[in-house]
């Protein structure tokens, strides 16, 4: 080699160190396929083979045993220890074995105790002496209910304008005041909300979305940071109804964790899912060119979360996030499902398929009992809507005639709380654009017009219950006499308002009052405040180009706003951006305009009073009224005194100045009197007061009285 020019081989020589790593197969240190069976009879060596055979037969029923590692039974002197190692071919079978033959009565006096080998090995780390765990020092959590105890009985709302995110208080009496505007974060050079914000269903938390990073939760009296849920490219966020969990969604079809479920209290992600439950939905969306996967939805009490799949609904139990009873709920041909807001009941509908009719089904969870099934024919689509307490389910069914040439609507109204779930039908010949249940009520309203292209709408109100009037009392119905004031479960039309400019309906959360609004680009933003109890219009108002309308949780105020989308299109709105507050009677309370305005969200509030407490308030309403009135007045006066402090000071300074000047003037009195030839104009005796009576003839009229004969 030495005679070779060193240059020639330099190319073939590696400069790096030679690595002598021998690639042995890795030792499998995993004993997941092995189980220990203890509490066996202790037998002499002669009987070992027989016992092993019996054991092998028993375990072999669960799964195939490993041929490489036969059952082993260690000896203790001349007898066995009383336990054995059994190795399966798969770890799944080993796990099954533990479940299957643990506590198996082997013979009269021996009950088997079966454990995974790994589990038993884990016991080695347990120390013999018990060391008491030190409790972590108590760190008080932020009081997320502090805002509910506001002494001013105010409601809060959040707005996103410009680069600001501000939480305001409003009570309908005074102009809104800022509660928190992210000043602490601003001082630290952070913007506390960059994209959208969302309140939790009971208003305890405020979630701000930071698109690149995830979601931050804020709450407590000073809006502290209460949690962070990392999720890159997050698009949506959804709280569970009892605020136990939060779901973050990013619209990335390929990501394995596009949907994440987190536990709010621990801050941990408890499960992640792909965006689409199956490729079928993805293909459908891709054909339509939109991302609209079947969404997860929460049951009313945080017990379950469910998502629609192909011909099934997958229901997961919370907080374990395990599939309920390890199997999905079969729902053939399902198109859409909804949880009842008042019970663990699912409603779903499926379209017609071959000879089988379209169906609306109500299923109870976890019993999976079919509460009600309704067959429908000639169905184009079904729009389901629950009344907010889950008392009624309304289904707007768009149907076609046999020839499929004309379509018409019909409503299927389920009385969910009643025995057997009776269903009422309501045929509507008109095109129906919108329908809404009254919160806490039995009524619903719908917008309809003769044809789909109409510009003037009719709004009809229906009541699921009928109150017997005086003139109907005494009439026999179904063998029973009716009495006045009796409430019958009978659908009836309350009233119809015709020729209205209306596209959307907004019931007051307190019920009774509804706002008919025409929203959208081409409409005027007209608002009609309508009292359904008295069937009178309270006010007709307008908020030009309004895009959003919402009630405060108490039903005292209504907000209307012109919001621009967070991404672009701002030129469209520039002039009108901002919001207005109205009283429920339609009185304008407040107007605010901003160059950029994105969001207006009332802080939701749950009812914390029990039924008895509410009743107590209702009976003593006069007393409370007086108390609140007095408190209102005191507060207004205190506020006014505070506000006018500066002005009072100004006034005092000014009056002092005038008094000084007057003193100078008074000093000159004598000189002045002299100059005026001895006349003292400040001496009151030089003035005489006279009373003058004046008569003014306003009108004269001449009438001829009967002449003398």
């Amino acid at each position: 080699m030495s005679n070779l020019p060193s240059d020639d081989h330099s190319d073939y020589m590696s400069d790096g160190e030679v690595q002598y790593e021998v690639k042995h197969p890795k030792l499998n240190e995993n004993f997941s396929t092995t189980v220990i069976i203890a509490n066996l009879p202790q037998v002499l060596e002669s009987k070992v083979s027989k016992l092993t055979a019996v054991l092998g037969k028993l375990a072999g029923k669960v799964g195939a045993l490993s041929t490489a590692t036969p059952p082993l039974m260690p000896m203790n002197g001349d007898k066995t220890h009383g336990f054995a190692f059994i190795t399966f071919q798969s770890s799944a079978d080993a796990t099954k074995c533990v479940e299957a033959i643990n506590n198996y009565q082997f013979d009269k006096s021996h009950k088997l105790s079966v454990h995974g080998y790994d589990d038993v090995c884990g016991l080695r780390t347990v120390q013999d002496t018990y060391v008491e765990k030190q409790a972590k020092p108590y760190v008080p959590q932020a009081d997320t209910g502090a805002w509910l105890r506001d002494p001013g009985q105010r409601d809060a709302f959040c707005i996103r304008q410009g680069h600001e995110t501000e939480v305001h208080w409003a009570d309908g009496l005074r102009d809104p005041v800022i509660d928190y505007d992210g000043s602490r974060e601003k001082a630290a050079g952070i913007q506390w909300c960059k994209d959208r914000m969302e309140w939790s269903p009971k208003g305890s938390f405020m979630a701000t979305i930071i698109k690149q990073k995830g979601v931050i939760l804020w709450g407590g009296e000073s809006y502290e940071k209460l949690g962070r849920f990392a999720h890159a490219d997050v698009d949506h966020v959804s709280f569970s109804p009892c605020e136990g969990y939060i779901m973050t969604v990013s619209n990335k079809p390929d990501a394995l964790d596009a949907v994440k479920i987190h536990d709010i209290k621990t801050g941990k992600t408890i499960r992640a899912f792909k965006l689409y439950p199956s490729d079928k939905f993805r293909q459908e969306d891709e054909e339509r060119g939109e991302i609209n996967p079947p969404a997860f939805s929460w049951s009313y009490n945080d017990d379950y979360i469910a998502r629609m799949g192909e011909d099934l609904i997958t229901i997961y139990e919370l907080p374990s996030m395990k599939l309920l009873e390890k199997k999905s709920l079969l729902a053939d041909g399902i198109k859409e499902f909804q949880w009842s807001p008042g019970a663990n009941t699912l409603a779903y509908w499926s379209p017609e398929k071959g000879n089988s009719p379209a169906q609306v089904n109500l299923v109870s969870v976890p019993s999976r009992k079919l509460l009600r099934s309704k067959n429908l024919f000639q169905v184009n689509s079904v729009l389901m809507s629950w009344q907010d307490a889950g008392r009624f389910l309304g289904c707007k069914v768009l149907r076609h005639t046999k020839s499929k040439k004309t379509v018409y609507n019909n409503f299927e109204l389920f009385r969910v709380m009643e025995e057997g779930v009776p269903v009422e039908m309501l045929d509507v010949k008109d095109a129906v654009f919108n329908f809404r249940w009254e919160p806490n009520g039995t009524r619903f309203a719908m917008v309809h017009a003769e044809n789909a292209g109409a510009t003037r709408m009719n709004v009809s109100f229906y009541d699921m219950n009928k109150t017997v009037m005086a003139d109907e009392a005494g009439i026999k119905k179904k063998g029973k006499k009716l009495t006045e004031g009796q409430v019958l479960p009978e659908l009836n039309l309350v009233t119809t308002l015709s020729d209205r400019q209306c596209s959307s309906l907004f019931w007051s959360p307190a019920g009774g009052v509804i706002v008919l609004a025409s929203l959208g680009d081409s409409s005027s933003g007209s608002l009609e405040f309508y009292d359904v109890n008295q069937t009178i219009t309270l006010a007709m108002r307008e908020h030009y180009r309004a895009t959003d309308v919402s009630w405060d949780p108490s039903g005292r105020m209504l907000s209307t706003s012109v919001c621009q989308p967070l991404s672009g299109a701002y030129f469209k709105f520039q002039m009108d951006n901002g919001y207005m507050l109205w009283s429920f009677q339609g009185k304008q309370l407040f107007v605010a305009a901003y160059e950029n305005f994105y969001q207006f969200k009332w802080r939701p509030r749950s009812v914390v009073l029990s039924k008895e407490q509410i009743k107590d308030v209702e009976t003593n309403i006069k007393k409370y009224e007086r108390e609140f009135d007095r408190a209102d007045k005191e507060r207004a006066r205190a506020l006014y005194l505070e506000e006018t402090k500066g002005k009072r000071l100004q006034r005092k300074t000014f009056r002092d100045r005038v008094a000084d000047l007057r003193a100078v003037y008074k000093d000159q009195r004598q000189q002045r009197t002299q100059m005026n030839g001895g006349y003292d104009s400040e001496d009151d005796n030089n003035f005489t007061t006279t009373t003058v009576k004046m008569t003014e003839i306003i009108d004269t009229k001449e009438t001829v009285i009967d002449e003398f004969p």
Partner: protein
Amino acid sequence: MRPILLKGHERSITYVNYNYDGDLLFTASKDNVPTVWSATTGERIGTYNGHQGAVWDIDCNKFSTHLLTASADATCKMWNVESGEEVQTFKHRGPVRGVAWGEGSQCFATISDPFMDAVAMISIYDCPLDSNPETWSPAPRLEIELPKENAVKATNVVFLNLNEALFVTFDDGSIRLYDVVNGKVLNMITPHTKKIGRVSFNREKTLFITSSVDTTAKLYDVVKLEHLKTYKTDRPVNDAVISPNKEHILLGGGQDAMSVTTTSGKAGKFETKFFHLVYETEFGVVKGHFGPINALAINPDGRSYASGAEDGYIRLHFFDQEYVNMKDPVPDAPTEEAN
């Protein structure tokens, strides 16, 4: 509040003022004929005929016996208030802009505009009312020439501090105090950047308010000449007066008379505005005129006010009960704060 419309003048109103007792209302107009009205009924009592030019200013003495008028016909005339007879004429070399009685009604001062070769002038005349007017000197006791190069014109003249100083406002926004004996400038301030149209005093002559084309009116202390308050509007201010019995300011104005015809009455801002004296906030307006308000006067009893405008009308308003009963919007301090 339904005003009495005083129709008597044929051209735009230049000045309105009450006499000391508040029973007479004197008005001057560009139609050469100063007029006196009953301040309670709005009845036209009489006119003072003799001027041949627009009358810019009038001043009635404290006892309502003699009236002085300043006119563009380059004269200042003294009239017998009751009979309407002309007592004496004082000739000037230029249009007379303003006239003011001295305390005690034994002398008066005038201001005149420059005309041809004559410069702007401040003149003080003696007029012992108990002697025969024939014996009065037709020449002023003191003449103060205003330098021609500055080309400033005097706009108002008032005697102050028991005739010790003469207070004159100018169209460059300044105010000067002159010594009445030697004519020297005692003091000078410049409250405004543009012409001071009118100045008016409270009854005790301890506060004054200037009205300026720069859309503000400013309140000053007479003794120290200190600025106290500013009342901002959106229009040239022609006149402002201080209420005698309330902490209020009445303010009138409107667009420049030249551009009035190009705007509607609504847009011209021809209302009388009410401001709070201390807080400088506007709290009310009275509409009615269809030309800019040139002159305002409030009755010394504080129960009525008169406004005269470019439209040639004088509107005599009597305050309604609501206004009379009006309380200060700022409540008195609670007792603990007062301590």
